[in-house]
């Protein structure tokens, strides 16, 4: 993993999010979201469906443009959404972060290797040989070295998602964004993917993970952010938020997830 060590960035946080607001028509989805992600930190974003978790991640990746608020990266990039955002800022945002999608979104017309080196070669202008070598070693790490030349349709969901993770890693982003990375998988394939994500956390990658796997969040995250109704209701150490939440809404949410048949 020598050539894909997590990027080292000075400062205590990699991203600071302040006052993020976003509405779709009359639907006010984000109502002023504040949080930050420490360097090497793993933040688990939890909350009921429709609470705006995906929209937060998409905002951090320039896939959605908030109406207001700021996103600041420790190495100088600050994007203020209160005024129109330039294309350059959106591309800069995409340069700092990389998304792993719920439905993988691999490129079906490209092989596994081509999926992974597309960004490094076409966008970052790295040499094909170098990008290929790096992709191969990353594939080896996630146990997919022999799938290098396969097309996505030839892979199981769990394998596709591991390729999705490698595609994001190969970009060497400051922060990895995961949007419910295992919720489209058959139960028996979830473990492999979670193991890979946990290892990345142990290696020091900075990550924001939207997940419904609370046991996993407890294991891998060092901060849990609970969102509901477009605001951060409470945040803190997993042991606090997931075990002894202060807020009534958090308690209700955890109860619904942990005891769905009550």
């Amino acid at each position, binding site marked *: 993993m020598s050539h894909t060590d997590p990027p080292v960035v000075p400062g205590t946080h990699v991203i600071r999010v302040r006052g993020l607001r976003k509405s779709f028509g009359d639907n006010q989805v984000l109502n002023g979201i504040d949080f930050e992600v420490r360097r090497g930190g793993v933040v688990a974003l939890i909350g009921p469906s429709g609470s705006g978790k995906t929209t937060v991640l998409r905002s951090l990746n320039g*896939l959605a443009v908030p109406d207001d608020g700021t996103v600041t990266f420790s190495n100088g990039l600050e994007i203020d959404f209160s005024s129109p955002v330039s*294309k350059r800022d959106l591309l800069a945002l*995409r340069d700092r972060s*990389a998304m792993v999608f719920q439905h993988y979104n691999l490129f079906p*017309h490209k092989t596994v290797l081509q999926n992974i080196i597309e*960004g490094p070669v076409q966008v970052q202008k790295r040499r094909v040989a170098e990008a290929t070598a790096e992709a191969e070693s990353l594939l080896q790490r996630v146990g997919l070295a022999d799938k290098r030349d396969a097309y996505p*349709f030839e892979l199981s969901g769990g394998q596709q998602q591991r390729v999705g993770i490698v595609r994001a890693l190969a970009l060497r982003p400051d922060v990895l964004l995961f949007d419910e990375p295992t919720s489209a998988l058959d139960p028996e394939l979830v473990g492999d993917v979670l193991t890979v994500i946990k290892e990345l956390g142990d290696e020091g990658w900075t990550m924001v993970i939207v997940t419904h796997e609370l046991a996993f969040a407890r294991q891998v995250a060092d901060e849990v952010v609970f969102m509901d109704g477009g605001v951060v209701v409470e945040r803190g150490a997993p042991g606090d938020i997931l075990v002894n939440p202060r807020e009534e809404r958090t308690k209700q949410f955890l109860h619904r997830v942990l005891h769905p048949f009550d």
Partner: protein
Amino acid sequence: MESQWDLAWRSLGPIIGGAIGGTIPLALTSFVLGLIIALAVALARLSRVPVLSGAARVYVSVIRGTPLLVQLFVIFYGLPSLGVTIEPWPSAIIAFALNVGGYAAEVIRAAILSVPQGQWEAGHTIGMSRVLTLRRIILPQAARVSVPPLSNTFISLVKDTSLASLILVTELFREAQQIATFSNEFMLLYVEAAVVYWVICLVLSSGQNVIEKRLDRYVAH
């Protein structure tokens, strides 16, 4: 009877010559130019700039709402009264290319829209701009979807090139027509022309199958 077969055989040369020297190059050139127009029109229709998408919409509507024969006559017989005289071949190519442009634009637009939104997002997350995502991610997938309908457009075009005989382009049908007029064997020559068109279309259909198989290699069956 003998002389009929004889005539059929003797006229096969000029008819096939008309296909090779007229019909096929006319269809190919117009189709390639038409696809370029169609891609530009499809992108214009999908653009967020109202003037562009509006203009593209009008173009498609005019092309699809008027007969090809009329379009051909406007260019060849109509434009000279405005002082613009265009030779038969270029007239035919312009008319057919504009016509293909209108029909294929809708095919290409639908194909682009059929690529899931997640593909755009995946392109963006690896840092690509809209243009690069379109070129590297979306269009190759849209191409696969558009091959069957575009092949049909091409096959129709091959048959429609027979209209060029009406503006004096020497192609398959005009050759047959001329021999028919001299020999007075209309049924024979027109059936013969029909058979040659049919054979060309059979060859094109099998070519279409080959291309579709190739493009299908990354799709589950």
